[in-house]
């Protein structure tokens, strides 16, 4: 594994998460609260039903991020799943329109830089807003109160949301051009907040500073008083 530091696997002891050899792992449970039949995935799955899981009631993302979809074949509403625990369906959907999750795939975050352009009109025309290396909880607060009809994701992976504060339906923007809002799965040209998809696996620099350079913090099994885990922004 081409790792700069010696042991970046401070996250879950024993679970290797490399930079270059990125690993993804998600566990899907049939019932809420991590009960019932479960399946483990480390690569994309077009149809969860094919793995003999009748439905997805809860999820644990051990290594991500992932993007899941309401329907098979990576279609329908999108749900971004970062590392953590999701005890029931209402914890991964922002719209709560549908409780089904039928396909999912790893979300590639292959750039440490993030650059996104949002356009008022389709075909990358009209007023434009450019965002570099930051999250924007309110586009309006930054002077962009227009609709968002087309998008260019120049670098990094982003998630856009219908409402401010990262609420409402989620739209994943992987690197590429989105000429029309249908291209990102929206039925209306409305995006009011947008953020980068970042994950420790790739964003070791800038995003957080290890107190002793090169040395990762202790694994979570440490007891007693803690070792502070400091994160800071690297502009």
């Amino acid at each position, binding site marked *: 594994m081409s790792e700069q530091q010696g042991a970046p696997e401070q996250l879950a002891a024993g679970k290797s998460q490399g930079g270059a050899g990125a690993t993804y792992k998600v566990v899907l449970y049939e019932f809420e609260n991590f009960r019932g039949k479960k399946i483990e995935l480390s690569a994309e799955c077009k149809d969860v039903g094919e793995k003999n899981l009748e439905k997805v009631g809860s999820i644990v993302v051990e290594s991500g991020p992932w993007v899941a979809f309401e329907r098979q074949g990576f279609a329908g509403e999108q749900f971004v799943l970062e*590392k953590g625990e999701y005890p029931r369906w209402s914890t991964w959907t922002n719209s709560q329109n549908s409780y089904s999750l039928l396909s999912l795939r790893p979300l590639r975050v292959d750039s440490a830089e993030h650059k996104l352009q949002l356009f008022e009109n389709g075909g990358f025309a009209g007023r434009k807003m450019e965002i*570099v290396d930051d999250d*924007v909880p309110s586009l309006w607060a930054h002077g962009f109160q227009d609709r968002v009809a087309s998008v260019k994701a120049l670098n990094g992976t982003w998630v856009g949301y219908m409402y401010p504060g990262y609420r409402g339906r989620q739209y994943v923007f992987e690197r590429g051009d989105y000429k029309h809002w249908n291209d990102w799965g929206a039925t209306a040209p409305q995006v009011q907040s947008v953020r980068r998809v970042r994950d420790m696996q790739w964003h070791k620099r800038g995003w957080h500073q290890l107190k002793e350079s090169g040395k990762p913090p202790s694994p979570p099994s440490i007891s007693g008083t803690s070792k*502070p885990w400091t994160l800071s922004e690297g502009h």
Partner: protein
Amino acid sequence: MATDHQNPASKQQQSGSSAFKLIVYEQENFQGRCHELTGPCNNLQEAGVEKVGSILVLCGPWVGYEQPGCKGEQYVFEKGEYPRWDSWTNSRRSDSIFALRPIAVDSQEHKIVLYESPSFAGKKIEIVDDDVPSFHAHGYHEKVSSARVQSGTWVGYQYPGYRGYQYLFEKGEYKDNCDFGAQQAQIQSVRRVRDMQWHQRGAFHPAV
């Protein structure tokens, strides 16, 4: 009443002066009777607002509460439009808002420390000037039972990706999860509350 609100772009943000402003509409999609707020309101009903159907935040940020007296579930409102109750709640537990107040974002720096146990004990995670969409991805798998906010204003969430109940953390100490309005000591993501009025720096270029 809703006269000059079709064109929010014409409302200039006065950077430097804290001019909070939001409009509450009694019906969805910014219809029906509307009420303009420029300061805190502990009891919207008593102030004549029958119900909150949609909200337009012209200058924020604000925090709304499910119950009068700024109690119950919390909803953070940054500048923008919220056409329905489900646009401001992640939990969808309740469609009521009975109190609203501005959030003072009076610091450009942001520093928060969250602790596993009450009274600032146990394992901790310290975050400076950044947002953390997943605590687990940073090696913090513990509960969050107490917190110290040294600077800035933050919002914590039950689940990763800023989902679930919202917990506003203003500068100060929160000894127990009840102090930040949580029934369970669970927070899996946290972010800063920022607003252009105070955070002019940053990487935004509204190119014309």
